[in-house]
């Protein structure tokens, strides 16, 4: 009797563990980590715009440009996963996806230029952030359990 209970507990713990399994190693996990890094840099820019102390904007935007240049290979054809939020539309409309990522890179570079050359940093950054939303709305699923 006791063993049955223990067995059930172990089994349910194993099940619980299974449920909690994260993203697989490889491109799916790597692109998730890449996007998280992009998010960190974006926050740095957002905070700078809020306080008006704009020095960190250039370097952060440069990092976003660099990340964007490395992102596309992390979306190999058909690389979906139950835990990934990537929509299959990415591969059905690859040229669009590619273009948005390219636009992010270009706008991030333009933000660097604005920060260095005394341009309108806020406008440049907002344009850059527009790409995040455009791409997510089209190519990323809402977060499920």
């Amino acid at each position, binding site marked *: 009797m006791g063993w049955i209970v223990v067995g059930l507990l172990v089994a349910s713990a194993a099940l619980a563990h299974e*449920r*909690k*399994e*994260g*993203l697989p190693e490889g491109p799916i996990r790597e692109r*998730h980590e890449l996007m998280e890094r992009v*998010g*960190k840099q*974006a*926050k740095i*820019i*957002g*905070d700078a715009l*809020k306080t008006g102390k704009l020095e960190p904007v250039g370097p952060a935007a440069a990092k976003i440009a660099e990340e964007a240049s490395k992102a596309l290979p992390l979306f190999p054809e058909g690389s979906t996963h139950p*835990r990934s939020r990537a929509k299959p539309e990415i591969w059905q409309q690859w040229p669009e996806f590619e273009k948005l990522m390219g636009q992010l890179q270009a706008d991030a570079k333009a933000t660097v230029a604005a920060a260095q050359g005394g341009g309108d940093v806020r406008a440049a950054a907002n344009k850059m*952030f527009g790409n*995040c*939303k455009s791409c*997510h*709305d089209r190519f*990323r*699923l*809402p*977060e*499920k*359990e």
Partner: protein
Amino acid sequence: MVARTWLLLQAAVVVAALGVRESNAMERGDAERGRTLFALAGGCGCHTAKDGPVGAGGGEVPTPFGKFYGTNITPDVETGIGTWSDEEIIAAIRDGVARGKGVESPAMPYYWYSGMTDADVRDLVAYLRTLPAVRKENRPHEGELPFARLAYRLWRTLFAPRFDRVRERPTDPIARGRYWVDHVSLCADCHTPRNFVGAIRFDLYLAGSLQGPGGDKVPNITPHETGIASWDEDDLVQLLRTGFTPEFDNVQGWMAEVVEGKGGGPGYRDAPEEELRAIARYLRTVKPIAHKIESERE
């Protein structure tokens, strides 16, 4: 004598008529203010299908008890609520009683709306009456329980929370923020988990849920480190205005719908700055609750 009685009678009629006019004037809502309420209510998106039209019904609400479709709340006389009186519409919003059908399913958050002031609910109704009437039959709920109305009545008796009706919209920003969060914008409805019978877990007020509406993950928005302790007031206002988190990760799904409105109608982003700020201020004051809505992606 007769003349005097006649005069008195006339006077009484005039007074009565004035009285009626007066109370009508008091009861008729203001559609312009109502639009602001509709925006603060996140556009009542369940009543709008993905591509609109606004209020014509068909928004999907998947629940553990079957899939519901928001009903047509445009003034169409056959398929909408064009023939309902103001009182009937108000009862549907605040008391959970739909004309001719009985108690509404818990999918309609009437229990939260029950705290809404008389003036606000009237304004909201006045706005609903300005929506373009759309002829569109309501879609029946899928997988509805047998004796559903009886079950809903029972649910209301046993599990629906009871709120005191707010008499007048509070002017203190924090109390006002709370009024929006609990009774109009319904942040509390989506961001508070429920137990297995669908009763609200007030011990986890605003602390998020892995299984929110439609199975979406709903984050903890209390000022705890497992919630949004690192967000300041401006961050929250930015989110309600633009859908961007401080990391410029934009919200999607249900949250995007309430921010942007649905079918071209207004959402949180169209609400006045001071009201969004009141919401943000109130949220900074709620009890921080440790409740990690795990990102199981790590």
